[in-house]
């Protein structure tokens, strides 16, 4: 390194070596390293908050791995923060490492964060925490890449050079320049000149606060100059270079810095990710392709060949056949394309085009994978444990103080009454922490009342929870912001619909109204693409439950109601086709879904969402369709008729007609039995039969018509159905059946002539004719005993067994037995009509 020669080429006038860079530009980073190697400065000054000077040595720590970010936050309000993200290919990071490796002092010279954070506070247009973080972030990284709408220096330069894309222009002119250029300072000089012309034309370009920052930088440079002499290198955004070169009096600079607002600020290193460096990541460090930049920076030579080989490797991992010949052709295409587009080297767009045309068969699908895994990349930074505490910990401590919830290692139970403000806040905090993976509290079963306003928690603070809190620091600076960010990320990454509904419920419990829109959107998308009605039907009840929770807690649930109604619509459309060709188990599962949806729709109907005010009538339409669809399993059809009947959506007559159809002789008995199970199964079914003798008559008539060989098949089903009834109901049913159609013990006059399934009156002559035979057969006179047994039997499961007394074979048979007894039942059944007569 010839020092003299270096001084000679250092540019206009001696003084500090000003290295203007593009933040996160790998070419800039390489150029900075070359320039520092050549110049060997005695001190390195870097654009960044000077409070972080104490943190600089950590950059050399073994536990430190970029991408990381300097995080400044206001001590009293951890939500007010700003980030300076640094990747391995950031020029600032390179300068920092170079200084540390060469034992040269490094300093940050930007305006202190105490002022910039105070500026944020004064900006009234930064209400949300995230918004503030963004504004804070734009400052260190935004202006170099031209993200500003007011004046975009690079766009102006690129436009002047005839390029429409400033990013690409910068890459071509600066980043992609061949390495090993003769003069390591030449690019910086050229850039300084261009920026000088721009600054002359545009002044501060609308960034009035830049002037203050630049004044501060000048003062710091001057101080460093006094201390180290000429051997000072400054790494800053290219935009600032002309201003730092400008001669300004100390007094003028001081005047600019006078009376700046201040807040108490604290700084630390936090881990960062490539995904967040990219624009898609939210915080927007301003680069689309951190993975590609990292590759450009790391690749020792032949970046395009290496990149395409990497892409090929990725595709092979994903089971696409990619041969070396493919890679060769892709490289050729990329290079020719670059030549055709007049670029010095193939850039990301050329390699992407080549990957699409050669490796990807023209499809965008593998390309999306390449973009996600390579162009952006999954790199996650690390910071050493010795880094100062993250603001999230502070925020948590503050909340713990305010809510009087001490972290204790001893397990204890906590009863919360959500109607109280403090308790509601405590519950919110615990739920949020759970979302963040900090399981301080476990929800426990509530001992007292079952109301939705009561919660019981089991609290226990384990030491490793502190680590979890530190890990969660990546999500945000306050518990609320972090939980919101985490919930959003979880929603996007969720695999199943049920996961997302669960998350939505959790968001409501934790009061995360910011994350809710994202979760709802993901939920709506998932629901739209999920073809399984079962999944949708499962998700709906949870969602409706959430709606009710939201009501208790006063959350705005408008969006939720909309999504729930949309989900219901999809279920309506999908349900009838989904009910075809089901086996018994699937039919039973589907019946449960129908029940759940019915309940949910009932609840939803009370909270009308825009455009979904007629959910209930539409649901009834769907049910009616199902009721008449022969391909649907009996259990569903029966249940559907029952639901309609309960809602008063069809008349009794119609229900009876449907039942008659389902139980007509042509229907296979197991199917009909399933219909009966669906129709009168569950609570209240028995009462229905008790009160509508016509229905009971239908059941009875069908049962007596079941052929003997089929009876054993339907018996278990029927038994399951009827054994679920209350004993009282069973008894009444039994009595009704014994009594026969619509009359009490032999009161022929009261006989309802119209009762379907029964003759108009009692044929005493025929009945009397049977009696002697009966007595003979039974060999006893206690007909009452037989009657009692019959009654029990009928109530237990099978009205048909009421036929027993007719033949006299009615030694009371316990109903718990299976088919052996049932065979006898079948044989006995034929006498049934006689008994009725």
């Amino acid at each position, binding site marked *: 390194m010839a020092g003299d020669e270096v001084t000679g080429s250092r540019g206009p006038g001696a003084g500090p070596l000003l290295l203007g860079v593009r933040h996160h530009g790998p070419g800039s980073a390489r150029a900075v390293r070359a320039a520092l190697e050549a110049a060997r400065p005695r001190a390195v000054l870097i654009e960044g908050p000077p409070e972080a000077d104490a943190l600089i040595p950590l950059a050399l720590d073994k536990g430190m791995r970029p991408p990381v970010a300097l995080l400044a936050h206001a001590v009293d309000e951890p939500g007010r923060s700003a980030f300076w993200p640094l990747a391995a290919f950031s020029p600032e990071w390179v300068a920092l490492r170079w200084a540390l490796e060469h034992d040269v002092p490094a300093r940050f010279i930007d305006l202190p964060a105490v002022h910039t954070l105070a500026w944020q506070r004064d900006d009234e247009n930064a209400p949300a925490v995230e918004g503030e973080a963004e504004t804070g972030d734009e400052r260190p990284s935004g202006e170099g890449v031209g993200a500003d709408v007011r004046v975009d220096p690079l766009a102006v330069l690129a436009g002047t050079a005839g390029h429409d894309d400033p990013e690409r222009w910068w890459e071509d002119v600066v980043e992609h320049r061949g390495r090993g250029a003769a003069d390591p300072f030449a690019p910086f000089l050229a850039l300084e000149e261009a920026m000088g012309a721009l600054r002359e034309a545009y002044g501060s370009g609308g960034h009035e606060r830049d002037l203050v920052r630049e004044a501060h930088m000048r003062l710091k440079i001057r101080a460093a100059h006094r201390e180290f002499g000429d051997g000072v290198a400054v790494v800053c955004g290219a935009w600032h270079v002309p201003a730092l070169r400008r001669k300004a009096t100390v007094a003028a600079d001081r005047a600019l810095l006078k009376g700046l607002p201040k807040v108490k600020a604290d700084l630390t290193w936090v881990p960062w990710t490539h995904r967040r460096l990219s624009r898609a990541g939210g915080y927007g460090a301003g680069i689309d392709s951190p993975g590609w930049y990292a590759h450009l920076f790391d690749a020792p030579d032949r970046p395009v060949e290496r990149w395409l080989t990497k892409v090929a490797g990725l595709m092979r991992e994903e089971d696409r056949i990619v041969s070396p010949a493919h890679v060769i*052709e892709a490289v050729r295409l990329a290079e020719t*394309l670059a030549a*055709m587009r007049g670029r010095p080297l193939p850039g990301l767009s050329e390699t992407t*085009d080549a990957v699409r045309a050669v490796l990807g*068969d*023209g499809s965008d699908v593998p390309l999306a994978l390449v973009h996600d895994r390579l162009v952006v990349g999954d790199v996650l930074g690390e910071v050493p444990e010795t880094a100062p505490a993250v603001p999230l910990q502070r925020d948590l401590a503050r909340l713990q103080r305010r809510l009087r919830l001490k972290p204790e290692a001893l397990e204890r139970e906590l009863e919360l009454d959500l109607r109280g403000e403090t308790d509601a806040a405590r519950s919110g905090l615990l739920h949020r922490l759970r979302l963040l993976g900090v399981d301080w509290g476990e929800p426990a079963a509530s001992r007292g009342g079952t109301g939705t306003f009561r919660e019981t928690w089991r609290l226990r603070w384990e030491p490793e929870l502190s680590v979890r809190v530190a890990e969660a620091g990546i999500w945000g600076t306050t518990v609320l912001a972090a939980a919101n960010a985490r919930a959003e990320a979880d929603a996007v990454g969720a695999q199943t619909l049920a996961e997302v509904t669960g998350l939505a419920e959790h968001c409501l419990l934790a009061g995360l109204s910011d994350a809710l829109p994202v979760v709802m959107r993901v939920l709506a998308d998932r629901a739209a*693409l999920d073809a399984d009605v079962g999944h949708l039907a499962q998700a709906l009840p949870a969602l409706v439950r959430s709606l009710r929770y939201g009501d208790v807690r006063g959350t705005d649930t408008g969006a939720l109601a909309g999504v729930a109604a949309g989900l219901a619509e999809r279920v309506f459309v*999908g349900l009838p086709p989904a009910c075809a060709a089901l086996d018994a188990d699937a039919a039973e599962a589907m019946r449960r879904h129908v029940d759940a949806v019915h309940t949910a729709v009932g609840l939803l109907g009370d909270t009308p969402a825009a455009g979904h005010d007629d959910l209930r009538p539409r649901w009834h339409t769907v049910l009616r369709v199902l009721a008449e669809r022969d391909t649907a399993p009996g259990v569903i059809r029966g249940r559907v008729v029952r639901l309609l009947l309960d809602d008063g959506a069809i008349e009794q007559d119609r229900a009876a007609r449907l039942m008659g159809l389902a139980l007509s002789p042509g229907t296979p008995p197991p199917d009909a039995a399933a219909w009966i199970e669906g129709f009168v199964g569950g609570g209240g079914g028995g009462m229905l039969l008790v009160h509508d003798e016509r229905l009971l008559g239908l059941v009875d008539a069908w049962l007596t018509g079941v052929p003997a060989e089929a009876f054993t098949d339907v018996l278990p089903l029927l038994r399951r159905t009827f054994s679920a009834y209350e004993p009282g109901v069973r008894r009444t049913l039994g009595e009704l059946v014994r009594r026969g159609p619509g009359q009490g013990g032999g009161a022929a006059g009261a006989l309802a002539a119209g009762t379907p399934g029964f003759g108009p009156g009692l044929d005493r002559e025929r009945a009397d004719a049977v009696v002697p035979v009966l007595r003979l057969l039974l060999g006893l006179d206690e007909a009452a005993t037989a009657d009692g047994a019959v009654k029990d039997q009928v109530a237990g499961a099978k009205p048909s067994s009421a036929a027993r007394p007719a033949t006299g074979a009615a030694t009371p048979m316990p109903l718990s037995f299976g088919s052996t007894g049932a065979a006898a039942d079948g044989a006995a059944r034929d006498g049934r009509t006689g008994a009725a007569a």
Partner: protein
Amino acid sequence: MSAPVEVSVEPTPAEPSRHHCAPAHPSAAGSSEGAPGPETREALRPHAEQAFAAELTALAAQDDRPRPARWKLSPWAVATYLLGGTLPDGTVITPKYVGPRRIVEVAVTTLATDRALLLLGVPGTAKTWVSEHLAAAVSGDSTLLVQGTAGTPEEAIRYGWNYARLLAHGPSRDALVPSPVMRAMAQGMTARVEELTRIPADVQDTLITILSEKTLPIPELGEEVQAVGGFNLIATANDRDRGVNDLSSALRRRFNTVVLPLPESPEAEVDIVSRRVEQIGRSLDLPAVPDGIDEIRRVVTVFRELRGGVTADGRTKLKSPSGTLSTAEAISVVTGGLALAAHFGDGVLRAGDIAAGILGAVVRDPAADRVVWQEYLETVIRERDGWKDFYRACREVSA
């Protein structure tokens, strides 16, 4: 995404003429759709190199960039020819393909790297149109064409025999009938293969040697035809029909693939549909129906939303049906609706006229697609302002 500027018609392989590029007809200069020359006056549709002879000549005259061997224009000029622009002397080059620049650049570059080019896309995305213009601009001749069908024989790609001569004089070069591909190889021109995936797999594979070894052996004569510089091949294929005769991976590897996308913006698509509908209506002598642009917009919106799986406002995701729902199908739905309105309706294109057509286009698979359609109807159309009539009409036909 793209919008074909012209809706292309399959060019009929006509008598190849070698002088298309020459400015034989100065009268045609300056008008982009120039009058066809005398020898093709009867042709329904002139070849690209004839119709745009003036533009090609102007481009060639002012093209000072390096040209690959036997190229009539430099790659830059070819890209300009397809994408349009204004030359230094003020000649206006009309855009032949409206769509992403990237696609044309990749296509031209592929031809320049001596890799073969495969244009994929659903029907109606101007694959043939682009391939014809590429060949016209690169080689000045777009007629070296093999039309792929299920019955395309090997002779269509390699060579055939003039049997009268073969019998009379025995095998010789005179008795050999070269295929378009063979001629292109010998002369360093661009050959075109239409509907590559419809060609039987064993016939497709004859292309492998041609594309990798750049030679075509004639074992009967103990000779071979070696491709000279400038030879290349453009194939088109319908990517929805990929299953017909899928390319073997060996053949696939010889191609760079470019997928021609469907029109990017709804406006562009509405424009294409209405223009084309008007043309078809005229040629079918349908009674004139007043402007049905609102219904056309609706058809295009429905097609785009279902095709893309997301609503136009980007807020709701949708399932996509199994049909392609290409622009071409939208055109036929609107044409059918027009016929319905003209013959059986009140002469105004209404929602009811297009509902049945849309249903037919969307529901290809009676089970799965019907659910998709019903969901779309109930969750999207029902709530859309001003679409009540359409919703009702669709309900009627889907019930």
